[in-house]
């Protein structure tokens, strides 16, 4: 019995529906496979590699036969063309792939900004959700999130009708020991390696220094902590080298948790791990780069610590304070003097040097 006879019988049956429901589920499964294959081929092409049948089968968890049938169907549908045995995306195929990538990254951004899901949950949830969103829904989502340009891992989000730009980073291991770099991207696949990067507290925007490597290990420093990773894990970190002068002026500081009770320091930066509503709350409290903070009280339980921030006493938990970086020993004297006169820092420590391309400076104050 073929499909049409079955669905015809199904319609006749008064209590029916399960057959058509099953068929809808099957169609959905096929669409998801198609979209995942498009995404995989696009990613492989973007990395300058050759997509293969085996690669598709491996990425989607299909047998070679199933993958071959899938690619055949996609060619019939005009999503792929075959050039010398290599599947290549057509214009339509590329647009569909970009839509899926856009959906994935926007959804990750949404999860990071507006939900409480843990960092290691984002990718899996976005993998499921990317197939359910229409272009119109994505536009609404992008507008709601303030038209983000990057996902939380540092990957650029493709614009609705534009091409995907690469993140522009090079693997961490490419840095030399005396070169500093800024993390621009953390690869979130495979999930188990990404979980290690999250556990190390790494995030895009951090400055990396003193990279040294042996065949077994890659050593480097961020935020004053040493990290040691297996090369396969470190290969998922992408950086751009920092110009020499910027690397010299960038203040790394130390975590707020290291500041003893009663001592004042100046906030250098809020780490990317503080995001969404939590970050906005801290900014609303006036906890910004340049603000003077003083730990005042510690809870008898040991955890929240109350800080004097702009005349108010605000308790923060250690997991938050750890992500706030303040000036270290060397910056403290300057901070005290400024704090006395109630004047802001003439130049925030995190502001790039005037020569930097964005040209963001503070000089217009006067």
């Amino acid at each position, binding site marked *: 019995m073929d499909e049409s006879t079955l669905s015809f019988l199904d319609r006749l049956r008064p209590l029916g529906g399960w057959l058509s429901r099953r068929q809808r589920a099957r169609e959905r499964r096929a669409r998801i496979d198609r979209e995942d294959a498009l995404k995989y081929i696009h990613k492989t092409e973007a990395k300058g590699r050759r997509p293969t049948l085996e690669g598709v089968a491996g990425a989607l968890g299909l047998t070679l036969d199933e993958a071959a049938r899938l690619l055949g169907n996609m060619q019939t549908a005009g999503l792929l063309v075959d050039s010398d045995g290599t599947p290549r995306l057509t214009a339509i195929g590329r647009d569909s792939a970009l839509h899926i990538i856009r959906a994935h990254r926007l959804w990750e951004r949404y999860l990071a900004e507006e939900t*409480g899901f843990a960092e290691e949950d984002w990718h899996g949830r976005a993998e499921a959700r990317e197939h359910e969103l229409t272009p119109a829904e994505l536009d609404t989502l992008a507008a709601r999130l303030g038209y983000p*340009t990057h996902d939380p891992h540092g990957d650029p989000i493709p614009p609705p009708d534009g091409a995907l730009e690469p993140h522009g980073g090079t693997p961490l291991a490419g840095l030399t020991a005396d070169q500093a770099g800024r993390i621009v991207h953390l690869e979130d696949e495979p999930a188990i390696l990404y979980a290690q990067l999250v556990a190390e507290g790494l995030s895009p925007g951090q400055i990396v220094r003193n990279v040294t490597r042996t065949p077994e290990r890659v050593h480097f420093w961020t935020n004053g902590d040493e990290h040691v990773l297996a090369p396969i894990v470190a290969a998922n970190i992408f950086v751009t080298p920092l110009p020499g002068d910027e690397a010299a002026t960038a203040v790394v500081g130390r975590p707020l948790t290291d500041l003893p009770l009663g001592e004042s320091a100046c906030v250098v930066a809020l780490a990317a791990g503080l995001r969404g509503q939590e970050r906005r*709350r801290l900014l609303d409290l006036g906890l910004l780069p340049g*603000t003077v903070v003083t730990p005042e009280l510690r809870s008898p339980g040991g955890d929240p610590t109350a800080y004097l921030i702009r005349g108010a006493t*605000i308790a923060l938990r250690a997991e938050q304070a750890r992500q706030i970086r303040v000036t270290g020993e060397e910056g403290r004297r300057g901070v005290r003097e400024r704090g006395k006169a109630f004047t*802001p820092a003439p130049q925030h420590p995190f502001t790039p040097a005037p020569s930097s391309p964005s040209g963001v400076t*503070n000089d217009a104050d006067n």
Partner: protein
Amino acid sequence: MSVLATDGRQLSTGDERRLVTDGPRVTPDDILQTAARLRREVGQGFHEQLMADMYADAAQLAGRAVTQPGEAQRFDLDRAIDRIVTSRLWGFPLMILLFTLVFWITIAGANIPSQWLSSLLIGVVYPWLNSAAAAIGVPGWLSGLLIDGVYLATAWVVSVMLPPMAIFFPLFTLLEDFGYLPRVAFNLDNAFRKSGAHGKQALSMMMGFGCNAAGVVATRVIDSPRERIIAMITNNFALCNGRWPTQILIATIFIGGLVPAWLAGFVSAAAVVSIAVLGVAFTFGVSWFLSRTMLRGEVSTFSLELPPYRPPRIRQTIVTSLIDRTIYVLWRAVVFAAPAGAVIWLIANVTIAGQPIAVYLVNFLNPFGLLLGLNGVILLAYVVAIPANEIVIPTVLMLTVLLTGASGIDSGAGVLVQTNSNATILSVLGAGGWTLLTGVNLMLFSLLHNPCSTTIYTIYKESGSKKWTAVAALLPLAMGLIVTFVVAQVWRLVGI
């Protein structure tokens, strides 16, 4: 506004020039592309840059224009108080002392007005209403429904509920007004953090010991969405004012009766306190569970302001807390208790084939109740007493008398029973087939069952979510059924 002004001006003049020289060839597409390019150049961080500069400018202006004489001195006093109330040595003992004091004043102070109210509303007004109704010839069924049913249930709830709340809430509000409560949250936050909750949940929980509906309203101070829903759902595990009398009565007659008379007071008090402590343990356990399962995706943030201490404004505090909390809660309770009174009277008086409806219902629920170590009367009482926990025990007594015809309590069908003699209650309950297991499981079930309808309604109003309201209502009920079932089975297996 350095950054954007400078930055924006540079960018816009440059682009204007380009657009102007391009002249007639400018299309909407060009403008969109320019906008997209600018968005990339400005980057994601500009909101924060803008905010940092606003604060910097504001601080500079304030530094030039504002002086605060006397501020430093007051600040030092605040800090000195803080060092004591949050110290490792004094923090917790002070807290326990203060709250014990609040509870003691509430319990000791509420007894007398409670008796006054009860003797006025039930001892004076009730017979007067009855004779007035008889005098003007109101038919028996109508006066029964309105006076024995609606009026008596409402009077009961008011006399049990009003005095403790009228004492507890103003005291609590005074502590709040003085600025002490945020310090309690600060001291206890570590324990709540470990179970995925917010330190301020300590305050809504404390309020829940007065009344769960008020406790749910008090979760408004928790500004993090996930922790606030957790606090709402778990507030029911704080034993409320309506359930304390049940606990105390059952502990006194069943558990206090197990030991010699000189120990009875202490043992029954210990039993009640351990039920309350069990409730706190459930609060932490369920908070932990919820934050890791159902509520994983809700946004979670933390910040806790420790405001400066203020001398409490006593009169204003008492007035606002009476209006905001006491009257609000009482009004809601009355609105829900009145129909419950009518239902109780009806099930005891409307008969089918010569038997009141209540008898059929009790017989239907009895096998299920026995499985839980309870009985049909208790289950029916909990169903009709959803509006207010206060009327559970009177309903239980009334139904038991109705079913068994036990003597010692002289009242009509559907009339809520009031008696002050524990011996009479014990003999009535004994006639109803109660054992020690029934008593223990009633205490557990009183802690673990759905919140009263006032609280459910408040949770719905506060959360705006049917889903969380349903979870808050059904989760404790399911837990109560499981716990009482397990206890009953183990009890019978061990053969106590």
